[in-house]
Each structure stands twice: as structure tokens, then as C-alpha cells.
């Protein structure tokens, strides 16, 4: 393990600590479910491990059959981004559906009053 810490590692670590604190805060607020908390906390802690010890990514890379540690990070990041875009699209669809339900309820209620 390389114990010399580079400035970029410090910057990234500060960002990751901030990200983890946001996740904990959102869980306390109740706007994140336990599953989502574990998911996000897992992502940021793993990223933290990779920042502290870049050799960690090479270890994972070798384990899963990719040659370079940086490639693992890029592949996983892309995969994660696609997945998150997909989840956001589904979430938006669900939100649209909820808005429609609300609009419908109000319209039917008003219609009934007129009747």
C-alpha cells in the first residue's frame, strides 16, 4: 500500500466524505430508503477505498479478468451511469403517473360537485 497521499486524493476524499454525509443525512430525513442508503453508501465507500489505495482497483481488475485498474473504474462508472439514467427515467414516469392520478381525482371531484 502506497502511503504517500497526493493532493488529488485529498480533494477526492473530501468530496467522498461530503457525499457520504449527504447520504446519511437523507436517510435521517427519511427521503432515502434503507436499500437506497446501502447502495449509495456502498458506492462512495468503495470509491473511497479506491482513492486511498489505487492498487485496490488493480486487485479487483485482475480478479474479474480486466487488465488495468483504471479500466475497471471506467467500466463500472459507465454501467452505473446507464443504470441511474434508467432508474431516473422510470422514476419520472412514475411521477407523471402520480400527477395524472391527482389531476384525475380533482377533476372527478369537481365534476361530481357540479352534478
Amino acid at each position, binding site marked *: 500500500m502506497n502511503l504517500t497521499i497526493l493532493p488529488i486524493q485529498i480533494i477526492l476524499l473530501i468530496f467522498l466524505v461530503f457525499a457520504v454525509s449527504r447520504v446519511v443525512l437523507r436517510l435521517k430525513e427519511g427521503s432515502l430508503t434503507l436499500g437506497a442508503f446501502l447502495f449509495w453508501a456502498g458506492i462512495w465507500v468503495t470509491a473511497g477505498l479506491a482513492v486511498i489505495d489505487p492498487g485496490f482497483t488493480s486487485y479487483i481488475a485482475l480478479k474479474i479478468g480486466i487488465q488495468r485498474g483504471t479500466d475497471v473504474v471506467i467500466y463500472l462508472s459507465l454501467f452505473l451511469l446507464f443504470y441511474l439514467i434508467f432508474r431516473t427515467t*422510470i422514476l419520472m414516469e412514475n411521477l*407523471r403517473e402520480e*400527477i*395524472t392520478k391527482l*389531476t*384525475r381525482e380533482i*377533476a*372527478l371531484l369537481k*365534476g*361530481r360537485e357540479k352534478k
Partner: protein
Amino acid sequence: MKNEKLIIVLPAFNEASVIDRVLENLKRELLLISNLQKEIVVVDDGSIDKTSQIAHKHGVMVIKHLINRGLGGALGTGLEYAKMSKAAMMVTFDADGQHDAKDILSILNPILNNRADVVIGVRNIKKMPFDRRVITLFSSIVTFVFFGIFCQDTQSGFRAFNLKAINSLKIKTQRMEVSSEFFYGIKKHKLRLVEVPIRVIYTPYSLKKGQQNSNAVKILLKLILRLFR
């Protein structure tokens, strides 16, 4: 049969220029059906013109969405209203003037004779403009792939439903993909489907208001997305 209720749902979005004539024709044709209680329901999907006011003058039920939710949203509201009113039959009819009110009896007949739970009014594909023909065929194939039902005109807005269909169908989609969603319900609840030929009045207005060519891909994407929800 005498006291059974028939609800005609017209989803309408900014149809002030045509809805007067559409309602006039519809009311005239409904007078010929004497053995049912009939109610016309205009679901104004957040129009910013005088669609609601004009419909009100005709003495029909007007349900107004505060904001525009799309065809599926409006049809879903009509369906909910039919359930609440304990309607035995429901007909959906486009408010843009493309349907001929004279076809209402032919649409209802399979329901009245207990031959169908759902009736779709199919437009003559040969009389459609070329781009519409392509979309209609594409939609039929997509619907067949997704739901295993082949219908000549899945995007037709002229449909009839009996009590079983009214109570079992649920609409979740909000926009044009609703036309395909009906087939999901038909398949899921094993409803009997009958197709009936209908006339279509193509005007520049109805062509502009109807299914846009670019919607075909959007509908396909939304249907795929629905599989993952």
C-alpha cells in the same frame, strides 16, 4: 336492458373549433338509441380554448383536467367516471371530428348482442394517407409482438366496452401509448375482442390532431420501458 347506462367519453384537448359540431351529431345519433340511459362525457384535458364552455352549452357532463395529461390520462378519467357511474357500457369517441356518429350503433351491436367485451372500430387502411397506413401497420405489429393480439387498427379511438371490460381495465399510460395499453388489458383479462369497420372523416384538422408519425417510436419506447417498471 332498459335502464342500463351507456357513457360516451370524448377526450378533448383544444377542440373548440370542432366540438360543437361533433356533439351536435353525436346527440342526434344517440336519440335513435331508445332503450338505454345515455350520457355524454367530455374529458377536457386542460384545454386553453373554449372547449369546456362549448361542451357545457350542449348540456353534457364536462370533466376538466387542471393540466394537460395526454390522451391516456383523459381516457383513464373517462373510464373512472364510467366505473363511478356504474355504466354498463362505455364508448370512446374522438372529439376532433374524425369519427362518424352514425357508426355508434355498429360499434355497440356486438356488446348488445353479447358477442364481445371490447369492440374496436377499425378504419379502412386503404383509405388512409400513406404515412398513416405505415404507422397503423407498425402499431399492429408492435401490439402483436407485445400482447399477442393482432388488430387491424390498434390506434383507433372509436371503441366500445361492456361492464366486464369497464371494471377490469385499468389505464396507467398517459399519452398515445394508451391505445396499445388497452390490448394489454384485453389479453390479461381474456376479454372477447371484435373489430368493426368504421368510416373516417379525414380533414386537415383531424390529421393534425391525430397520431403524429414521430409518436410511433415514442410509443414503442414507452411500451419497452413499461416492461421494466
